[in-house]
């Protein structure tokens, strides 16, 4: 495959876009979370800094940078410093294999006689289109637990330690249900490549010869969709499954001892993981960048519309994350484990059998 300067600059552009969105998602989501919680609890929320309090997050970020960085005297200094980086690394990298728009052919661009860009190139809006896409996501996501475990151990504090132990048990348990729930989408797509998963969801189901619904995986694989979404909440340590933090019992869980930018890195990792999870749910079950009831042309307009559709779906899911957090109370630890192993795991396996039958009878 020829790989020239234009390809490299396109790759750099894509990486810049994805990283830029990932980094800006944290301040925006913090604002949405605080305003959303205020809305749900009938309060006002932060509304002083900037219009609608939009700049509050940036003020918070500035505060994080300026705070004193405390390392506890009896902490393991090297691991204590490395732990937030372990946590942030998978959160930043996983988005690379998720497609975020329809591919389009770049038209030739000229400016005053100069060819700015030779046309005829296919622009695929995905950083790394590898053929084991989803496995890469699970591989990197399974490394996310090291940040938490290392932080808990290196802090040398009992609350941090309890938080870390809970987190690792929880993440290992729910990873299983998450993976099994995702398998069905790969079965119907016949590929591990996420672009193929999205393409397999194009088109429509026609009910009773008149109602057209988009052929998104969430309709035939509803059980898998629910199991995946709920396990996604547990995997990202969000309420009602935020036992690793559980401020009523564990002060702040695994990051109790952390301050300043190191704490901010855990915070960023949590919101980035949430964003990636929302993007993954969208890609696997909600048709990815598919615009319902409309066939996008393979041009820049189609690309822009598909990115907009993707962003809308991810944005809605992110709002659901906030909505659920401020609506449901926290689970007890034994309830959480029982739900993971005794409810979601059998449900995910049942879903695999159902979808396998559907595929065998060629209904989907």
């Amino acid at each position: 495959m020829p790989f020239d300067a234009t390809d490299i600059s396109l790759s750099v552009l894509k990486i810049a876009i994805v990283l830029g969105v990932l980094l800006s998602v944290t301040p925006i989501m913090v604002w949405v979370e605080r305003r959303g919680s205020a809305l749900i609890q009938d309060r006002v929320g932060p509304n002083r800094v900037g219009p609608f309090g939009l700049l509050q997050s940036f003020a918070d970020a500035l505060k994080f940078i300026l705070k004193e960085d405390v390392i506890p005297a009896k902490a393991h200094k090297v691991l204590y410093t490395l732990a937030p980086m372990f946590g942030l690394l998978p959160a930043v990298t996983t988005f690379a294999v998720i497609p975020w728009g329809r591919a389009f052919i770049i038209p030739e661009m000229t400016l005053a006689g100069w060819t700015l860009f030779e046309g005829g190139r296919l622009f695929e809006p995905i950083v790394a289109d590898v053929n084991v896409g989803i496995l890469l996501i699970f591989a990197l996501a399974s490394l996310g637990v090291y940040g938490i475990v290392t932080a808990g151990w290196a802090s040398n504090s009992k609350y941090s330690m309890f938080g870390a132990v809970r987190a690792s048990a929880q993440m290992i348990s729910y990873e299983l249900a998450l993976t099994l729930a995702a398998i069905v989408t790969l079965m119907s797509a016949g590929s591990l490549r996420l672009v193929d998963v999205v393409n397999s969801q194009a088109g429509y189901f026609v009910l009773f010869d008149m109602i057209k619904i988009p052929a998104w995986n969430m309709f035939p694989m509803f059980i898998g969709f629910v199991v995946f979404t709920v396990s996604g909440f547990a995997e990202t340590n969000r309420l009602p499954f935020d036992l690793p933090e559980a401020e009523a019992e564990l002060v702040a869980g695994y990051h109790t001892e952390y301050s300043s930018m190191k704490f901010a890195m855990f915070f960023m990792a949590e919101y980035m993981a949430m964003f990636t999870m929302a993007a993954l749910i969208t890609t696997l079950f909600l048709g990815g960048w598919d615009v319902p009831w409309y066939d996008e042309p393979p041009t820049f307009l189609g690309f822009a519309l598909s990115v907009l559709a993707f962003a809308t779906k991810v944005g809605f899911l992110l709002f659901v994350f906030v909505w659920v957090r401020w609506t449901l109370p926290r689970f007890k630890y034994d309830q959480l484990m029982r739900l993971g192993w005794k409810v979601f795991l059998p449900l995910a396996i049942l879903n695999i059998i159902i979808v396998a039958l559907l595929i065998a009878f060629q209904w989907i």
Partner: protein
Amino acid sequence: MLELIVFYVFAAMAVIFAVVVITHKNTVVSAISLVASLFSLAVMYVLLEAPFIAALQVIVYAGAIMVLFLFVIMLLNLQLQDEERTRPVQQFLGWFGSAAFGITLIYYIVKATVIQTLPHTPFMSDVRSLGIRLFEAYVFPFEMVSILLLSAIVGAIVLTQRGPMGEEPRGDR
């Protein structure tokens, strides 16, 4: 050129972290170094155009097995202690055995004149053909492994299960 740089960086990482695993006094640092070493090996698989094996390497070893290792080490909270040399024979055998193994290994690597290079065609990294192989040619060992794992799971449950009256687990503690 780029591949070569990536290879040397991660090969060096794999070796350095592997050395840290056996030399560092702190067991948690050792465990995390092993994770880093395994991850570097996964990068080697990517360079060999076997991304499927690379992903499995990270999921199974770095992601699942080492988390449990780390879990146990942290819960036991092993303290640093210098044990007395109670059995000099064991010390001797340990050093002698590993030195003999190392020398043999180096001798044969140096002696080998024809180093087989891999064919340029990539490995069977396609999941479809891998699955077909697994369920046709290698179905017997595959099913045997699953029975082995099942018996291990049942064994683990039996050892830790409490009786109906809530008495202590039957396993040797």
